[in-house]
């Protein structure tokens, strides 16, 4: 759960973010930066004109001669006004463009993450918590947003303002500048201390928040179990502990954040006094001034200096409040890049799946929609070989392990001839599902080979391989959308009639038509409004409309009660007819009519044969089948 750690590679990551931004907006971004700089520079200048005007007033206030100085004062005011207009225009343009750049870049980051994610191997999703992956799309994108839209412009502004002010200060007086600079060194020290504490605790707060969320999630999910076991008091105690810890760190984080501003503001105030006293001292003692301008020290310099002191202090304050966000933003970017950098599924396959027709006993590729498919293999010498897709699957001496240490499957040999129904039975964890994960290359085998219509599956293009395999999974997954759209997921160009026919075949039509809006009923949150059995029927319909030559059914009917199963059995039989089918089921009644049944135990096939043969053999299958009756 170490989701909110700081960035490991701060600078490289920041650089990468910037180079992405520049590549997204090679013109717009420089324009925006220019506007930001212009806006900042112009915002820092007024002190100069303020000084001009004040010195004019100072010269003439005793005489009260307004007419004498008016043209000059008004000229400075006019110039000031023009500068303000430029600053406003620049400010408006950059704020406006920034909206496009921020949201546009976020969109591109999102797309890259998502599109890249589609091509990642299943292993990635099995080994990363979905909550963590999601957090890249929500939390990390949000912190990145802050980094782009606030922190980076702010950093530019602060840099320019500080540089401008330093320059102006030096222009007036070296001595006075020294005081301000010494003061700002003190400020940055304080910022580093307090701000560092703040970002430390903010990161801790995020961690604690995530922990609390995880805990609450788990407990709310199991709330009924808590009640059944009278576990309420213990649950309260545990929660109090976690809640108290969250409070402790978030109180600290907010304290640090809250006190930073008053501290900075008042260091600013104290600095102000020092500058004033120091200025007065210099004036009174008539110390010779040292400055870029060569001006002598006078009241009209001291006064704007005081204002610049405030501005300077304010800028340092600004920077300090952004530190936490920058740290968190870069950390978020790092995780986003980590997701983007994941290696996609390897696919070295060259053999593709094409529609074909048979002409004079020869197979020819065709553009039209035929029901016939063929494997197309292009040899390096330019010759092209076509082979009818038949659905012949063989596994030879396959070994497999998920983590490279613990063997899950060993020495697996399976021969499935076209049109055959092959069943796998065995205890949970025996490796039944794993076998199917290998055939469609969700995972790659370590030893042995898997042959599909005479080709190694590793020579077949990954997508074409999967297109030829229909899978109905144990955990039914439906997507938000209508029932019709969910069925159509199996074949995107299927007509309504085709979808309905598939639903009928799967025995789902009956309950669908009884739904409030029939096929147009909206499904939300993985079909929470449907029963598990109904969801299974829908996923069978979805596979049926895809009409693949080979089907894998992993506990596809486990939640359909046996009565309903018997009712849909006809449809299922029709669905399986003419296809090579791999069936995994707990319920022996589901697998009984298979051509061959593989009994699995601890990653090995320990028995194989038809139901009759296995019953006759009186081995493990017989035990399983009749175990309930013959324990003694």
């Amino acid at each position, binding site marked *: 759960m170490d989701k909110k750690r700081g960035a490991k590679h701060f600078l490289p990551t920041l650089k990468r973010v910037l180079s992405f931004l520049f590549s997204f907006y090679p013109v717009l971004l420089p324009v925006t930066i220019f506007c930001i700089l212009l806006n900042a520079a112009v915002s820092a200048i007024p002190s100069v004109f303020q000084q001009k005007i004040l010195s004019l*007033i100072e010269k003439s206030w005793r005489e009260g001669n307004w007419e004498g100085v008016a043209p000059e004062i008004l000229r400075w005011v006019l110039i000031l006004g023009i500068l303000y207009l430029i600053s406003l225009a620049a400010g408006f343009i950059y704020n406006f463009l920034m909206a496009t750049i921020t949201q546009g870049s976020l969109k591109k980051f999102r797309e890259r993450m998502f599109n890249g994610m589609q091509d990642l191997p299943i292993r990635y999703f099995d080994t990363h918590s979905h909550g963590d992956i999601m957090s890249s799309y929500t939390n990390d994108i949000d912190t990145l947003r802050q980094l782009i839209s*606030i922190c980076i412009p702010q950093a530019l502004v602060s840099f320019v303002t500080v540089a401008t002010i330093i320059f102006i200060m030096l222009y007036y007086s070296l001595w006075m500048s020294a005081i301000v600079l010494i003061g700002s060194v003190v400020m940055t020290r304080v910022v580093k201390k307090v701000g560092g504490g703040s970002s430390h605790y903010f990161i801790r707060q995020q961690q604690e928040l995530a922990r609390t969320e995880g805990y609450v999630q788990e407990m709310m999910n199991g709330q009924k179990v808590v009640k059944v076991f009278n576990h309420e008091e213990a649950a309260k105690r545990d929660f109090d502990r976690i809640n108290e810890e969250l409070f402790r760190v978030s109180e600290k984080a907010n304290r640090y954040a809250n006190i930073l501003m008053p501290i900075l503001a008042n260091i600013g105030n104290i600095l102000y006094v020092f500058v004033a006293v120091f200025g007065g001292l210099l004036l009174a003692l008539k110390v010779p001034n040292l400055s870029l301008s060569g001006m002598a020290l006078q009241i009209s310099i001291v006064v704007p200096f005081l204002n610049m002191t405030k501005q300077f202090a304010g800028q340092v304050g600004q920077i300090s409040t952004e530190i936490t966000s920058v740290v968190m933003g870069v950390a978020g970017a790092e995780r986003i890049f980590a997701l983007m950098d994941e290696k996609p599924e390897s696919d070295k396959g060259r053999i593709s799946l094409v529609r074909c027709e048979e002409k004079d006993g020869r197979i020819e590729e065709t553009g039209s929609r035929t029901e016939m498919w063929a494997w197309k293999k292009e040899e390096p010498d330019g010759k092209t070989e076509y082979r009818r897709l038949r659905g012949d699957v063989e596994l030879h001496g396959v070994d497999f392990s998920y983590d490279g240490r613990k063997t899950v499957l060993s020495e697996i040999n399976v021969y499935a001839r076209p049109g055959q129904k092959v069943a796998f039975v065995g205890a949970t964890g025996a490796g039944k599902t794993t076998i199917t994960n290998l055939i469609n290359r969700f995972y790659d085998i370590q030893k042995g080979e898997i042959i599909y219509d005479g080709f190694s599956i590793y020579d077949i293009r990954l997508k074409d391989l999967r297109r030829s395999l229909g899978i109905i999974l144990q955990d039914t997954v439906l997507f938000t959308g209508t029932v019709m759209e969910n069925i159509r997921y199996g074949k*995107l160009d299927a007509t309504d009639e085709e979808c309905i026919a598939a639903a009928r075949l799967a025995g789902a039509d009956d309950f669908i038509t009884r739904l409030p809006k029939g096929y147009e009923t909206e499904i939300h949150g993985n079909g929470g409004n449907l029963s598990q059995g109904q969801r299974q029927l829908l996923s069978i319909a979805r596979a049926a409309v895809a009409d693949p030559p080979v089907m894998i059914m992993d506990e596809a009917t486990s939640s359909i009660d046996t*009565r309903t199963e018997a009712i849909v059995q006809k449809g299922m039989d029709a669905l399986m007819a003419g296809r090579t089918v791999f069936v995994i089921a707990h319920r022996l009644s589901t697998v009984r009519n298979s051509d061959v049944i593989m009994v699995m135990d601890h990653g090995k096939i320990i028995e194989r044969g038809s139901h009759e043969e296995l019953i006759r053999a009186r081995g493990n299958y017989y035990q399983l089948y009749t175990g309930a009756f013959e324990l003694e």
Partner: protein
Amino acid sequence: MLIRPADPFTAAEAFGMELYCTEEGENSVNVIRILKQSIREYKRASVLAPVMVTGEVILECIIPFVTARLINEIKAGSGLQTILIFGFFLIVMAMLSLFFGVQAGNYSASASTGFAKNLRKDMYYRVQDFSFENIDHFETSSLVTRMTTDVTNVQMAYMMLVRLAFRSPIMLVFSFIMAFIMGGQVAWIFVLVAPILGIGLSLLIWKALPIFNAVFKKYDALNDSVQENIGGMRVVKSFTREDYEKEKFNARAEDLARDFVYAEKLVSVTNPLMQFCLYVVVLFVMSFGSWLVITSRGSRLDVGQLSALLTYSFQILSSLMMLSMVFVMVTISVESAKRIAEVLSEESSMKESAHPVRTIRDGSVDFDHVSFKYSPLAERPVLSDIELHIRSGEMIGILGGTGSSKSSLTQLISRLYDVTEGSVRVGGVDVRNYDLKLLRDQVAVVLQKNILFSGSIKENLRWGNPNATEEEMKKACELAQASEFIELFPDRYDTHIEQGGSNVSGGQKQRLCIARALLKKPKVLILDDSTSAVDTRTDALIRKGMQEYIPDTTKIIIAQRVSSVQEADRIVILDKGRIAAVGTHEELLEKSPIYREVYESQNRKGEEEDG
């Protein structure tokens, strides 16, 4: 000087908030009344924070006043002594302001985070007292959001309230007063410009808030679809729908970005608007002010006051900006506050008996004319006119199709829900008269939706009995046929179970859940489809073990498989909420067509071959 924009999105974002819209909810007065009760021990901090803020603000307003005097003294060529005196005053004031500022920061941090802590705690405690009916009322994910994101939103708004809601108006008023004291007529410019900013900001907020609300909904929808995609990755890949998913996502992301850009462009005006107002003031003060200084020969306004006016102009405008931000934050958090109040005001629907019975005689269970609806508004009852009498120690099987209310029937026994009509008795006493804790200890249910919690196997087992010895745990696991696989784990009983039990298989999870229930040594044990993922052989072993070792415990088994209930003393067939038949396996084969059908569908071919 650059000012933070009052853009609601940035503001919300900066504090990690999310915008929400909910349709229903309590009215605002009620919400405040309900939430207020959670402040408790943080009342002191909540009151002291604004007091300190006031002190800080007053000083902040006086400081420019004094610095103006200082400037005048310098300008007048006063001696160093005078400057030092003013300087000393200023430093003292800065120290005081620092003190107040730090105190305000500390108190507001404690007040808001403490309030948040109490809100989380109160909600959590409230949920612990929920009945099943209450739990059904809220979705898990929505409860989690309420306890995390919503509380964070309220916390931020509360902090703003105790700090800025006082700070900005006080600052505004003080700055106005000071500006008038110092600048006289010149200060009228503020009266002119401040409303421009005020109205401008209000217009923007008024226009942008609903747009942001809508965009945020889209944003949530997009993230939901990503979540769905991740969860359904196996399906996406097996149908090779990667490109389709990409297209779908890209179109939605594009759409979202367009809306976001529009909304953000709208608020991108705030920053220049603020700058515009500030510039107008500066230009005016500069020209009109210098006219005033010169023509009055410094009597109506002088140089020091002139620059103080500039400071006040900044303070006035930025406090308006702050005020608008407070408004936005509070508006955003109102929806969160409502959602929190909903949980806090939810009353447990289960009333405990005033004089509870504290012993349960035996495990007999009687249903007398029981009817049950989940909601009084529901038209049709889920169970109707159930008449069933179970003797202590009997093994009862319950069979029926999906939706025949098998689970509902058993949930009435441990009073997870209350009957609508009739009564349920355990050990001869109406369940509503028992001490609830006692009843649930003695009637153990293994729910259909099995859940293990993160922690070791031992810790999970101890849910059944916190004081269980190792021996007892081992015994229970043996009975539940779990000891075999537990012994195979390297850490055995100390093996860590991941959240939701994701690192054990479905069948193993079910067996652990049974063991956990067995540790209670209950008088009645209900297994609600608890062995569906366990193979038939193990299933049979579990039942055999129970018959042998806990013969006196009443065992009620809900199952899909006939084999799981076949040797029960009696089998109850439920159909559409009514008892269709009761009897032994043989009797039911004779008289119940439903039972016969189910049995045959499961044993069709087997019979022919074995026979």
